[in-house]
């Protein structure tokens, strides 16, 4: 494949990305943990166990 075709394909792809994902930002943004949470039927509160586990407090940052 020659360089001209490579250029046209790459330019086409990035313009399509701009048009179709420029607003929603699915591909060029931070990918967080995603999962399902369950609601406690008695209290109506969100429970973090199930498929999504929110550990919290895991940060050990700083210098």
């Amino acid at each position, binding site marked *: 494949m020659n360089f001209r075709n490579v250029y046209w394909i790459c330019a086409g792809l990035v*313009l399509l990305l701009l048009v179709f994902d420029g607003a929603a*930002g699915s591909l060029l943004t931070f990918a*967080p943990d995603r*999962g399902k949470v369950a609601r406690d039927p008695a209290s109506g509160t969100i429970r973090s166990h199930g498929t999504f586990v929110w550990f*919290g407090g895991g940060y050990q940052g700083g210098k």
Partner: protein
Amino acid sequence: MTPEAPKKLFREEAQAESVKCASCGGPIALHSFGAMQRVICPHCGSALEPTHSGALALLETASRKHQPSVLPLHARGTLEGIEWEIIGICWRRCVVDGIAYPWQEFLLFNPYRGFRWLIHSNSDGHWTLGANLDGAPEILDTSHHTVRFKDRRYRHFQRANAVVTYVEGEFTWEVHVGDTAEANDFVAPPHGLSTEQSSGPDGAELNFTLQQHIEASTVWKAFAQPGKPPRTRGIGALQPNPWRRHRRQIWLSMLVLFGLWWVLSDHVAASLHTRTVLDEQNLGFDEPLSRTLTIGRTGEPTAIEFIFSADPLDNAWAYADVMLVNLATEEAVGFGVEASYYHGVDGGESWSEGSSRGAVTLGNVIGGEYLLQLQPQRDTSSLGDASIFALGATRSPTSFGITLIEDVHLTRYSVLALLVILGLPMFGSLMGWIFERRRWKNSDYAPGS
């Protein structure tokens, strides 16, 4: 009455004549009819020339051994749709700065098309196909020695004294081992023009040859040679520059694509409805935070930016574990965001890193009702410390703030597109320039010489 045989549309293929060498008796096949001026026996190297009667007369006896060439004598191959036969092989070489650069020239013949030259450079493995010029080039008055032929300009590439080192087969001129000619090569890749000037007893002779690059694999396939052709090294003098093949189209495309990028970027920016969904400051670190909020338009994906700031923050850190739960689907996203700021003096030089503000951008967040849960954490090392106002001291944060913005403008998409649209043609130009620099490195005009 016997029916007449049907008339033939074409005459029979020309038959090659076979004679014996007057010196060694080896068989010699002749193909070039009346154009032949000199025959060199492929077996012993003796020179023969045609007499008026058509018979070959021994001109010079030799007893050299046959040497194999890259392509054999009498091999047939189809190049550019025409079948050619190798009827003569001539090895030549030139010496530049004490280094010999040999090449092999194959005289191709087709009874309907005449003669062509197939040239193989032993030093770099590249091939060219040449034909006699039907005219003479015009010398242009330019700083770089340039000639023009049929609207194409050829730049002078190199000058060398070419010496014949080995010959075999038929030739259309009187060739001898040791013949010397001054050769000047001009290039306009993939085309080239070569001039050769030689002096003999009949005076000076000037020959022009128009050449064209030909791929080694094409030659090998055309002449049905086994295995692979000799490996090519470096850039051939007439090798086409792949980076400049569609240069004009690429730069024109760039202008069109840039205009398209401008319109599309503007359209995407105009379609956004950027709004601050949540903005709370001076929040305490003591308890987790929980808020219910509406993000975007229900069911439609949006990009959000979550900003976390801490105050005061001096050689300290703050962090938040955040979870956003879509109340309709119970799908959750979890992420962490950090704010940290450090500074000091090291070896007499001051330095700093980080910021009192951290941000995370999330894409593809489906619009709807959300529950925001946030667990703040902080550096507590200086809480209650009396020396917090000393220079370079640590100041732990006492409060934090959060801001959540929906439909944020993600400039990275526009920037990426712009980089590709403008950057690739520039990259191609750079590579084309490097390619040409490597080509001219082998010329009389080598960069830096």
